[in-house]
């Protein structure tokens, strides 16, 4: 794992089924919306020894016609929505600030949990991304300081604390600890 600069990590890893799934989805999504991967999959991508049944993705808000085009392309590539079939219904979910899930046809796991930006921390994650270069493509993940702060300050489950710890250990020379502390203060006042 090479930390090339503040915005780029190169991982010459053997891709997992979860990585291939995320890459397949993102390849379509990025043609229609700005996105960022957040939460558990970020730590898994960086080597954490655990599995997740979903990949969390935040996207910018898009209009209905853009969503229709995205959904059409997803269906063409063998994805389906677990929540609903009709494009307008799925769009309503997103408009109501609810997440929608997509999986490959015939499967429920793994799936992508897709949601629109809801608040300033989602916006921050979407604006400040790290490009992870993999053997078969690139993935944009949230900057690590925000992920660590969110897991340590808000989520706090053993799994999330271990995720945060893993990221802190594998990326320790590259993290801005003052920024983690700042985010924790901001988050504790927000939630």
């Amino acid at each position, binding site marked *: 794992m090479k930390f090339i600069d503040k915005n780029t990590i190169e991982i010459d890893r053997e891709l997992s*089924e979860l990585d291939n799934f995320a890459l397949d989805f993102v390849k379509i999504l990025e043609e229609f919306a700005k996105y960022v991967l957040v939460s558990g999959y970020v730590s898994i991508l960086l080597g954490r020894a655990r599995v997740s049944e979903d990949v969390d993705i935040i996207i910018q808000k898009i209009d209905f016609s853009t969503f229709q085009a995205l959904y059409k392309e997803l269906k063409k590539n063998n994805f389906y929505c677990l929540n609903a079939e009709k494009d307008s219904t799925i769009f309503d979910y997103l408009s109501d600030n609810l997440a929608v899930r997509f999986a490959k046809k015939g499967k*429920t796991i793994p799936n992508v949990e897709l949601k629109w930006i809801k608040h300033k921390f989602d916006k921050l994650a979407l604006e400040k991304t790290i490009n992870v270069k993999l053997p078969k493509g690139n993935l944009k993940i949230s900057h690590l300081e925000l992920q660590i702060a969110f897991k340590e300050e808000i989520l706090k489950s053993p799994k999330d604390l271990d995720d945060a710890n893993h990221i802190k250990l594998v990326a320790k020379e590259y993290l801005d600890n003052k920024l983690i502390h700042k985010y924790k203060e901001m988050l504790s006042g927000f939630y």
Partner: protein
Amino acid sequence: MGFIEENEKERKSFVRKWAKYVRTHSDKDWSKQQNVIINSALKSANMTREQFFKMKGETNYVR
């Protein structure tokens, strides 16, 4: 030390050891081992939409 504390200590110790392994071995090496966990778990995962949403506590999420 009780069971919960013992379990937490072991978990944290494993996270430290594994992170050290990731830092000191090639990406191909650690990912190959990590993939044994990921791919086998995903392969055996088999549930309906309803079961999945129930597991996630999202029971009103199918329209």
